[in-house]
């Protein structure tokens, strides 16, 4: 892997709510290399979106990034720098693509104005220059007749076109890193294919690093080179994409892969993960997945597993790494035993 562009160390983002402290992101460490595409995968409530917002320092009270967290980006700690310095990074060096393009765009400005605004804020220069740059970017992201489209408002564009505009806005300052939070979830499958293709092309062209946040393992398999799986506010597994799909180690990752219906596969019963993701105010003791796991034993109830090194580039937060024989004894998960009791 190339020299890391972004290194996150022990990131903790907690929300101080009436119902207790929500430890949404609870000790996350990972890195993204220059020009690399990394996937951050998990179900709702696992902490993946809060991780993204933390990297952009967009966490609002009652949430805050806890002391001791470090986000090293190009040699600077983004947690420590002041808001003014952060504003120069946000949008210019790290840009974000959100899930819902209709809410990410301002409905009362033309799309050209909105892209030009980014240029003027970060680079200054004349209005004409910024506008020219906006039109250029619209062309780069494959919007037909960009000169006319730049004068249109978001509601005049289709969902796929809007997402292209959002990508144009993210790319206009040629950032080193793009954080794409579920960029295709709101789109139809044929439009999703277009947008993923566009992201791949643009990455090859500009060498931008991408942190792709998604719940869709299909999108991950086709787009990224390395996958990070999150559960309960923590990373539970990390591996290169082929390795993860071939040799998933963590029972949660295996459960996710098996639960997914796939086109062209046998029509038998879907495997499920019983129970639901626990609330972030009350993560289970020991391993956070233990109540839903088919292999959990006494150790998992009391001892919080570290990220074990499974292979050279493969880590897993599961005690099976040191007691692999336990895999031969699957049982009914505790959550089911309790429910039927």
């Amino acid at each position, binding site marked *: 892997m190339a020299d890391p562009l972004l290194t996150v160390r022990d990131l903790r983002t907690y929300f101080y709510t009436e119902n207790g402290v929500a430890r949404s992101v609870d000790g996350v460490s990972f890195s993204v290399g220059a020009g690399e595409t990394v996937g951050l995968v998990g179900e709702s409530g696992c902490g993946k979106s809060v991780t993204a917002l933390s990297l952009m320092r967009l966490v609002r009270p009652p949430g805050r990034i806890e002391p001791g967290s470090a986000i090293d980006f190009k040699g600077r700690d983004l947690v420590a720098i002041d808001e003014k310095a952060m504003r120069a990074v946000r949008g210019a060096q790290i840009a974000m693509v959100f899930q819902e393009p209709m809410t990410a765009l301002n409905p009362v400005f033309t799309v050209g104005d909105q892209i030009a605004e980014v240029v003027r804020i970060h680079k200054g220069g004349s209005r004409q220059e910024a506008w020219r740059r906006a039109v250029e970017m619209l062309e780069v992201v494959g919007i037909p007749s960009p000169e006319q489209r730049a004068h249109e408002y978001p509601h005049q564009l289709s969902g796929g076109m809007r997402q292209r505009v959002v990508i144009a806005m993210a790319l206009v300052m040629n950032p080193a890193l793009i954080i794409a939070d579920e960029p295709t979830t709101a789109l139809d499958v*044929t*439009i999703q294919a277009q947008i993923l293709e566009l992201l791949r092309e643009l990455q090859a062209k500009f060498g931008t690093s991408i942190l792709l946040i998604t719940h869709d393992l299909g999108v991950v398999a086709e787009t990224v080179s390395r996958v990070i799986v999150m559960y309960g506010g923590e990373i539970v597994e990390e591996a290169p994409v082929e390795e993860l*799909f071939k040799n998933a180690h963590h029972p949660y990752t295996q459960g996710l892969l098996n*639960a997914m219906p796939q*086109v062209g596969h046998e*029509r038998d019963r879907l495997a499920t993960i*019983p129970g639901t993701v626990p609330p972030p105010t009350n993560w289970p003791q020991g391993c956070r997945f233990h109540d839903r796991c088919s292999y959990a034993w006494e150790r998992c109830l009391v001892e919080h597993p570290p990220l074990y090194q499974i292979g050279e580039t493969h880590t897993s937060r599961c005690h099976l790494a040191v007691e692999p024989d336990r895999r031969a004894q699957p049982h009914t998960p505790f959550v089911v035993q309790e429910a039927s009791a």
Partner: protein
Amino acid sequence: MSAPQTAATKPLLSVRGLTKHFPIRKGLFGKATGAVRAVDHVSFDVMPGETLGLVGESGCGKSTTGRMILRLIEPTAGSVEFDGIDLVTLGTRQMRALRRRIQVIFQDPFSSLNPRMSVGAIIREGLTIHRIAEGAAADTRVRQLLEEVGLRGEYASRYPHEFSGGQRQRIGIARALAVEPSFIVCDEPVSALDVSVQAQVINLMQDLQRDRGLAYLFIAHDLSVVEHIADRVAVMYLGKIVELAASEDLYREPLMPYTQALLSAVPVADPTVKKSRVVLTGDVPSPANPPTGCVFHPRCQHPAKDAACAEIVPPLEQKAPGHWVACIKQPPTGVDWAIQQTAGGTKQPTRYLPVLGIPTPSTTN
């Protein structure tokens, strides 16, 4: 009128020429200046105990079709026959009585349950309205239903906000089952759920179907979910059914170029598979102003596409046993070459089956 039939048994639901045009009104007096053709002459059957999948992208008319069957939207034209009764001409009271046999499960488990009613009251409502059970008998029935969908009986006194998305969808299912229907319209029932929870709900729906002989109209945009649950699948594009076949046939050998593109766009969760993809360019045209002839022709990648495609409205015809396709360029077709030539056709129909990336692990890169 010929329409897709399956076997000799009598269909439970028969939809013929179902159409919904929403008027576009302009000006001071709201004069209709045009129409959005949300659903245009849709015909299909659902057999007892069968799951028919209805797939398509947003705006293709699949939800409107489901809602017309339930008479939540009044059709502009066409008929919906349920067990020999035409639903479209039924009066309000008769329709209400029939709703005992036709139920619905909605997409959003958050907005489809009344937040001010306890779960027990929600499930009980149908029992009361249809005079199925009262008092203690109703309480027992509610508990039974909750247990049947995998929840605890004592949850009856709780309120919807106390439950997760998957649990709420189970409550929605229990509510539908309360009146013992034979047919359920499922409008994107698992789209809002996470993968692991989605699998639980799909399995539950399959178990209930097996135990109770339910028929489902399963409306969804997720093609892999539909393949898993449906016996037959209908693909909609711009208000029309463009392909209808047994699930295995449709996914193995899609014949309509739109279905081919749609299937090839589904990401495969296997990084070793290199998919050859039919990437559709552009967006779906507006249903207020659909293309002439075949509605898909401006985006079609069929090599024999020509001027005839913009002229002739392709009939939904049987290309193989039980495999209905609306494409005049995919042989065999009842639209003769001579007719196509008169309409400006220059290319003879040819069989077109682009290589799809349906998992055939490749060793080469």
